[in-house]
């Protein structure tokens, strides 16, 4: 065999390795990994209750924590098993059971204010993460049922315990489409 060919082959391979190495090194330093879009995609799978049961202040901070590896995917009881499975599929990880430390999944619920007891202190208003409580100081408050996520964050600030959680109304009255004939 021609020893020259071996030398050429080694040189070509070496040149290739150096070129690609430099290119990859430059890319790693100069092209930002698309972290935001991963956070977006994780956030899109979370139920957006903004309840903080995962110990992060809202769904997006939890999504960011999952994306950078600070938190596991098993911390969202409102999303339940469905969300864990969806997250596992997105992140190519094995699904795992919900961590009971962060609470157990429960049927959807909404807050309801007993207007006879409400003293109009307005302390629950800033607690609501989705602005679903209408009211003002010394006026009776009420919850916009359709927009309440059932996060329970309005319960602790209420000085007279006039807020309770009730089962959420059915998502849809429709059981099936009307029949044709």
């Amino acid at each position, binding site marked *: 065999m021609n020893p020259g060919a071996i030398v050429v082959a080694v040189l070509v391979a070496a040149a290739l390795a150096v070129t690609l190495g430099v290119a990859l090194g430059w890319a790693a330093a100069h092209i930002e990994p698309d972290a935001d879009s991963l956070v977006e995609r994780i956030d899109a799978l979370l139920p957006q209750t903004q309840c903080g049961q995962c110990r992060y202040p809202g769904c997006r901070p939890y999504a960011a924590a999952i994306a950078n590896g600070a938190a596991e995917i098993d911390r969202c009881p409102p999303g339940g098993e469905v969300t864990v499975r969806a997250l596992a599929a997105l992140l190519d990880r094995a699904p795992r059971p919900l961590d009971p430390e962060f609470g157990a999944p429960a049927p959807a619920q909404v807050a309801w204010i007993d207007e006879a007891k409400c003293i109009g202190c307005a302390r629950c208003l800033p607690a609501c993460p989705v*602005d679903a409580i209408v009211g003002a100081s010394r006026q009776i408050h009420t919850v916009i049922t359709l927009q309440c996520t059932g996060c329970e964050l309005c319960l602790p600030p209420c000085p007279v315990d006039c807020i309770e959680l009730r089962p959420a109304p059915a998502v849809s009255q429709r059981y099936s489409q009307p*029949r*044709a004939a």
Partner: protein
Amino acid sequence: MAARSTFHAGLALDAHKQQACGTPIVELPPPTQVVLALDQGTGYSAEPVVTVGEAVAVGTLVARTDHPSASAVHAPLAGIVVAIETREAAVQGGRSVCIVIDGDGSDRIDDSVRPVADPAALSPEELVQRLRDAGIAGLGGAGFPTATKLASARNLGAHTLVLNGAECEPWICCDDALMRSAADDIVLGALILRRAAGTVRCVIAIEDDKPAAIAAVTRAIERLRDDALTLAVVPAVYPQGAERQLITAVAGVEVPSGGLPADAGVVCQNVATAAAVARWATRGEPMLSRLVTVTGSGVAHPCNVRAPIGTPLAALIAASGGYRGKPLRLIAGGSMTGRALPSDEVGLTKAMNCVLVATRDDIGSRLGAVELPCIRCGDCADACPVGLLPQQLLRAALADAHDTLRQLGVRDCIDCGLCDYVCPSQIPLAHRFRDARRRLHEAEAMARKAADARERHDLRKRRLQAAATAEQQTFESVRDRARRPGDDSTGDTN
């Protein structure tokens, strides 16, 4: 007109119609009590405008609505409102708020019930509104408000009105009986509906297994001599009477997936609805009664009954000779698409075209049948009139794979039940698809709610940030002024 023979696939079924169709129509006298469901079968309810204890006359409006999918309800007999409460009803979900009226035996008629002097003098828009006020709803089985359909047909510029007299579902024959006995009413109603819908022509479609009805309607059309009103005879293939399938058969066009018939230039109404429109025009009568088939091996004398809306089904069954043998199920509708009823105390609704009192002989083959695994024979796909792939849909439905379900067109399923009927493994396919549609619907509603919550949360965060920034700025400007008293713009210095 040149009618295409039929739609894709479908199946000729045992009709079971001769039982009820051989006897004359029974006119039911006013019952002692009516139970008027405020949801007349569409899933949307009207709002009561009467109170308990109030006296009502025949034709008094008792519930009104602004919802396009709900219809107004009128008292079909004179008497006293004795209850407004949630009761078992012949609707999706099995319960609805009902107005219960005890009859006083008189036939006082409400002042609002006056014949329409000249329907032709009304503008189409007025006509649609008057039909809405009269509570006219589709009598073919869906109970959808006629006015809403007509209005959308006008807006989308439909050119053809199809009157559905196909009545393909086994057991049901009330439309057949109506066409044989009141063809002139149907033709008169057709003209009014054609005007209200703004279509150029009207086609009355009847299946070829109803020769007497075809003859009667042909004679009525000939008496009229209107070139834009024609008859189309379509083959008796189930589900010929399904709206989209009938439109394909009669007009040769396919209604786009997710679209309305009006998108294909067609609007469809039942022949019985046309007859009800004629009753409204000639007598001023809102929708107070309907013709309903009471049949099945579980009643003594199957027949068609004209009964006030709200009549308890027990009274209808009594008018048909009462129960016979061992009734197993009470079904609203026919054997293919009917729904089981909770009891015979529920009131007749506008959407109920048939009360099937079924015994084991009628529906027994499927009761207690063991569901076997799918053997991939493909019979379901051959039978599906929509051209779906039930095998694939079943897999996706069991896996709750929403994207796949959407791609395979689970929403285009018309719930005809043919896939169940032909399945050798006795898999309740249509039921699974109905369930899958509900879950899909719920998942989409949840996704919308989550998106809404995220947006509100983001807006709140931004608002709080802006407030914090503004506060910081105020603090800084006050601090700066305190440090330089000489620059105070008030000039108030010592």
